[in-house]
């Protein structure tokens, strides 16, 4: 379509075009969107709308938001999302089973030789089932140190130096102790 006349444009804007005429008008509009906007005197109102309405707005209780997503995405599902098809070499993993059996027999033999100290470490290793850090940017590392289990949390916010926690100062916010667990879960997580 060459330049449509004013009547065609107005009919289009009113939603009155159909079929081929509509397709041609749409194609023309796509090529000449800027001109059409200027013709309509749209720019000023477009800018007003862009300024009046937020393009981005953090949801309330943002940490809780993330944790709820994780809860529904991962924790309520028994198996993680399917990964892509295995590469060819993984399809020969049938050979792993007999190898694994042989390995287990060997390890069992070794295990009968392991002393008390190692047994204590195995018990310590069993201390933790999972460590979950809800805040983004925070990650945990579990270290077995002798007979002790150590969790190292990295990426936490620093407690402000000015906050005198020894004297009893605390940051802002509603104390989670003030709520019963079920109520707290809906407020925080």
């Amino acid at each position, binding site marked *: 379509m060459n330049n449509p006349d004013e009547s065609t444009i107005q009919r289009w804007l009113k939603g009155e075009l159909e079929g081929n005429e509509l397709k041609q008008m749409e194609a023309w509009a796509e090529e000449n969107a800027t001109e059409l906007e200027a013709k309509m005197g749209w720019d000023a109102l477009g800018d007003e709308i862009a300024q009046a309405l937020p393009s981005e707005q953090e949801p309330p209780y943002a*940490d809780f938001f993330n*944790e709820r997503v994780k809860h529904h995405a991962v924790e309520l599902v028994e198996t993680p999302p399917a990964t892509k098809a295995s590469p060819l070499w993984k399809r020969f993993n049938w050979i792993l089973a007999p190898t694994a059996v042989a390995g287990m027999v060997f390890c069992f033999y070794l295990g009968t030789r392991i002393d008390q100290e190692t047994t204590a470490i195995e018990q*310590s290793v*069993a*201390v*933790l*089932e*999972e*460590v*979950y*850090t*809800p*805040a983004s940017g*925070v990650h*945990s590392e579990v*270290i077995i*140190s*002798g*007979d*002790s*289990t*150590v*969790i*190292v*949390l990295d990426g*936490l*916010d*620093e*407690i402000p*130096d000015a*906050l005198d*926690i*020894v*004297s*009893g*100062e*605390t*940051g*802002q*916010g*509603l*104390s*989670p*102790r003030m709520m019963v*667990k079920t109520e707290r879960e809906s407020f*925080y*997580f």
Partner: protein
Amino acid sequence: MIIRLFCALTILFTSLGSAADLGKEVIGRMQVQVYFATNGEPSIAGKALKKPSPAVEKKLKSLRRTSFKHYRVLGVDRQPVFRSYENWLTPLKPSEELLLSFEPRGKAQSGKMMLDLELWQSRKKIMKAGPTLEKGKPLYIFGPKWRGGRLLLAIELVELLQ
């Protein structure tokens, strides 16, 4: 006479009520100690803070390959473990900058208790874990940084009544 009767009935009904809620039975005691670990000047955390005992300090220094030079005790709290209710540890009381909530998961077995443990900093949950604790084996957590050092928590099941 009427007052005595009233008191007796109150005690009776209260005890009946408590007995009915087995969930509130105390099955153990949990403790958390918070230490300030730093390579700088330890008095920055507070001038009157005590050092841990030499044995404890040796233990704290052994936890990681890179240990801190100085340790000070910032606070301690000990609370009962209820059979079916969660409870809270507030080691820096009255500050709630660090809080721990805990609740047992099922019955203790072979001297060990599995717990749901949540660590809170500045009223935000920063960690959730499911440790199995036993007496004499604290769980250590290296937590947030503060005043050039780091807070280190030692969480321990100090008593198991089951």
